C-alpha cells in the first residue's frame, strides 16, 4: 500500500520535470540556426519568397516563441504531438512505429551489460590484482575511452566490408520476409550483433567497474568479518553477503545509464541505419522538423524518467533500510 502511494507520488512528480525538459528542448531547437523552410527552399531554388512566407505562416513560425510553445503545450496535454512538417503524418504515429526497434535494441544492450558486467566486476573484485583483474582493467580502460561511433565504423570496416560476415546496416535484409522462419531469425540476429555490441560496449566497461568498486567496498565491511566468524565458506561470504550489498549501488547506476543509452541510440541507429526512434530523431533535427523533434524529445524524456523510477523502486525492494522508511 505504501509502495503504491510512493509510485503514484513519483509519477505525479514527473510532470513538472517533463514540463521543464520540453521548454528547454523547445528553446534549444529554435536557437539553432536554420529553419524548416530553408530545407524546402533548398529543395527548389526557385521557390519564391511568397511561398516561404506561406509555409512560415502555415507552420505558425511567424508567431512569438512563447505563443508557439503554448500552442504546442496545449496540444501536448491532450497527447497530440501534432504532425511532421516533412510528410504531414502524425508525430505520434511516426514515433510509435519506430519505438519498438529502439526498445528492442536498447533492451538487449542493457541485458547484455548486466549479463557481462556484473560477473566480470564481481570476479575482478574477488580476485583483486590477479591476472584476470589486470586484464579486465585494461579492457575497461579501452571500453570507456573508445568513442562508440569510431568503434562502430571500425567494426563495419572489418566485419562488414573486409570480412563480409555481418551486414553493416538496417534491421533485416531485403526480401527476408520470404525466407523460412529460421533463416529469417538468423538474418535478424546478424543485423543485431554489431549495433547491440557497440551500444553495450561502453556500458559493460563502466558498470563492471562500478560493480568491482561496490564489491571491494562491501568486502571491507564488518559484516563480512562476522560472516567469516560464523564459519561460512569463502564462496558464501563473497557471493551472498558481499554481492547482495555490492549490487545496491549498481541499481542506481543503471537508472542513471538509461539516458546515456537513449542518447547513444541517436548515434548508433544513425550509423547502422537502424530504423528506430534515435535515427528518426536525428533526421528530424537535420530537417528542423520541429514537431517531430519535440515529440521524440518528450518520449525520450519520459522513458528516462520512467527508467529512474523503476531503478528507485528496485532499490527500495532490494534494500530493507529504504523499504521501511
Amino acid at each position, binding site marked *: 500500500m505504501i509502495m503504491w502511494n510512493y509510485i503514484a507520488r513519483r509519477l505525479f512528480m514527473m510532470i513538472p520535470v517533463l514540463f521543464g525538459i520540453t521548454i528547454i528542448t523547445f528553446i534549444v531547437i529554435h536557437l539553432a540556426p536554420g529553419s524548416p523552410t530553408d530545407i524546402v527552399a533548398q529543395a527548389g531554388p526557385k521557390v519564391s519568397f511568397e511561398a516561404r512566407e506561406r509555409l512560415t505562416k502555415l507552420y505558425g513560425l511567424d508567431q512569438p516563441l512563447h505563443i508557439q510553445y503554448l500552442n504546442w503545450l496545449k496540444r501536448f496535454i491532450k497527447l497530440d504531438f501534432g504532425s511532421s512538417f516533412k510528410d504531414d503524418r502524425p508525430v505520434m504515429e511516426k514515433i510509435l512505429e519506430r519505438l519498438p526497434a529502439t526498445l528492442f535494441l536498447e533492451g538487449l544492450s542493457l541485458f547484455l551489460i548486466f549479463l557481462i558486467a556484473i560477473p566480470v566486476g564481481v570476479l575482478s573484485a574477488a580476485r583483486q590484482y590477479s591476472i584476470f583483474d589486470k586484464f579486465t582493467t585494461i579492457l575497461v580502460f579501452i571500453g570507456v575511452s573508445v568513442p562508440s561511433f569510431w568503434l562502430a565504423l571500425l567494426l563495419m570496416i572489418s566485419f562488414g566490408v573486409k570480412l563480409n560476415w555481418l551486414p553493416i546496416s538496417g534491421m533485416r535484409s531485403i526480401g527476408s520476409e520470404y525466407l523460412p522462419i529460421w533463416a529469417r531469425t538468423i538474418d535478424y540476429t546478424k543485423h543485431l550483433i554489431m549495433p547491440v555490441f557497440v551500444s553495450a560496449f561502453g556500458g559493460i566497461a563502466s558498470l563492471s567497474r562500478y560493480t568491482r568498486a561496490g564489491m571491494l567496498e562491501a568486502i571491507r*565491511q*564488518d*559484516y563480512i*568479518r*562476522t*560472516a*567469516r*566468524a*560464523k*564459519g*561460512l*565458506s*569463502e564462496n*558464501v561470504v563473497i557471493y551472498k*553477503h558481499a554481492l*547482495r*550489498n555490492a549490487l*545496491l549501488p549498481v541499481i542506481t547506476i543503471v537508472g542513471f545509464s538509461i539516458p546515456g543509452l537513449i542518447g547513444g541510440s541517436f548515434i548508433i541507429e544513425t550509423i547502422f541505419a537502424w530504423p528506430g526512434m534515435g535515427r528518426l530523431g536525428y533526421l528530424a533535427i537535420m530537417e528542423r522538423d520541429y514537431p517531430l523533434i519535440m515529440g521524440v524529445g518528450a518520449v525520450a524524456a519520459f522513458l528516462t524518467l520512467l527508467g529512474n523510477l523503476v531503478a528507485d523502486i528496485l532499490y527500495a525492494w*532490494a*534494500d*530493507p*533500510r529504504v523499504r*521501511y522508511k
Partner: protein
Amino acid sequence: MEKLLEVKDLRTYFYTDDGIIKAVDGVDFSLDEGETLGLVGESGCGKSVTALSIMNLVPSPGKIVEGKIYFKGRNLLNLDEEETRKIRGNEISMIFQDPFTSLNPVFTIGEQIKEAIEVHSSGRACSATKSSKLDHYSSGPPVCLSQTSGGATKEQVFNRVVELLKLVELPFPEQYYRYYPHQLSGGMQQRAMIAMALSGNPSLLIADEPTTALDVTIQTQIIKLLQRLQARLNMSIILVTHNLGIVDEIAKSVIVMYLGRIMEYTSTEDLFKNPTHPYTQGLLNAIPGVHSESKEVPRLYVIPGTIGSPLNLPKACRFYPRCEKRMKICLQEEPPLKEVATNHLVRCWLA
C-alpha cells in the same frame, strides 16, 4: 586438568608498505573451561589482533608468523581451511565492537542466525553433554542438528533460532526473526549477535569490546547477560575491553597488553589489589572515581604521552617513553615476564 585454550608464543605481524608492524609479539596465556579472561590495554596494544588470531581471521596484510594455539589439545594453526571453518562460529565464536556494522543490513536477524546454525548442522557430532546444556532452558524440542544425515528440518532450525533469541532475552522472538538489523536498537543488535555466536554451543566466546559502541545502561545489561549465559552454558570467555570496571565485574584473570606484549598477567583480584606494572598502575589511576559534590574533584590521572608507533618500537622496554618510573636499565634491556607471586606475571625491572 587440561586447559581449554593454550596460546604459546603467538606472533602476528602486519606486513605494510611502511614496514612490519608487530601487533602481537610473543604472547603466552591459557584459559580453563568456564573461565573468563580479560584482555585490556589502550587502542593499538594488540588485544583485538590476539582475539582475531585465535579465530584465524587476521585481516590482510596481517599474518600469524609464529606460535601455537592449542584448543582442546589441537593446534588451531595446523588446521586446514575446512577444519578451521568447522570450529569458527561453532566451538569458538566471536562478537564484535559495533553490532550495527557487524550485522549484514540486507538480511533479517533470523536469516543471519539461521545461516550460522545451518552451516554447522551437517557432519557435527552431537554429543549428549553438549546438547543437554541447553535443554533445561529451552521450551522447544532439543535440537541436535546432525543426527540425520540431511541436517535439520526447516522447522527445527526455526525453533532453534527462536530458542536462541529467547536465550539472549529478546522479547517476541518470533517477531524479531523477521526484523532487519536497522530496526533494532544497539543493545538488541548486540543480543542478536550473541544469539548468533551461541548457535553452536561454543566452548569459547571471544567478545571484542562488546559494549564499547553501546550506552552505559545497555553496557551493563549486555555484561550481565554474558555472565548469565556463561553460567548456564559453562563457556569460557575472552573479553577484550578498555573498560577495567567490566573486567572487575566478570573476569577471573586479566592480561594487560602494551604494544604487542603482555605487561602484567594475573588474577583480577590481584590486579586491583596489587597492580605492579607502572602501566597497569597508570590505567587504574585513570579510572574516574565517584566524588561527592561538596568536595573538590581531583584532576583525573593521565598516562603521559600516547601509545607509540608500532612501526618504530622502543628498543628495550616498550613502555619506556611513557613510564614515570623509568631507569637506565629499561633503555638497555627489555625486562622478562617475571613471576612475582603465584600466578602473577609482570614485565618490569622494578617488580
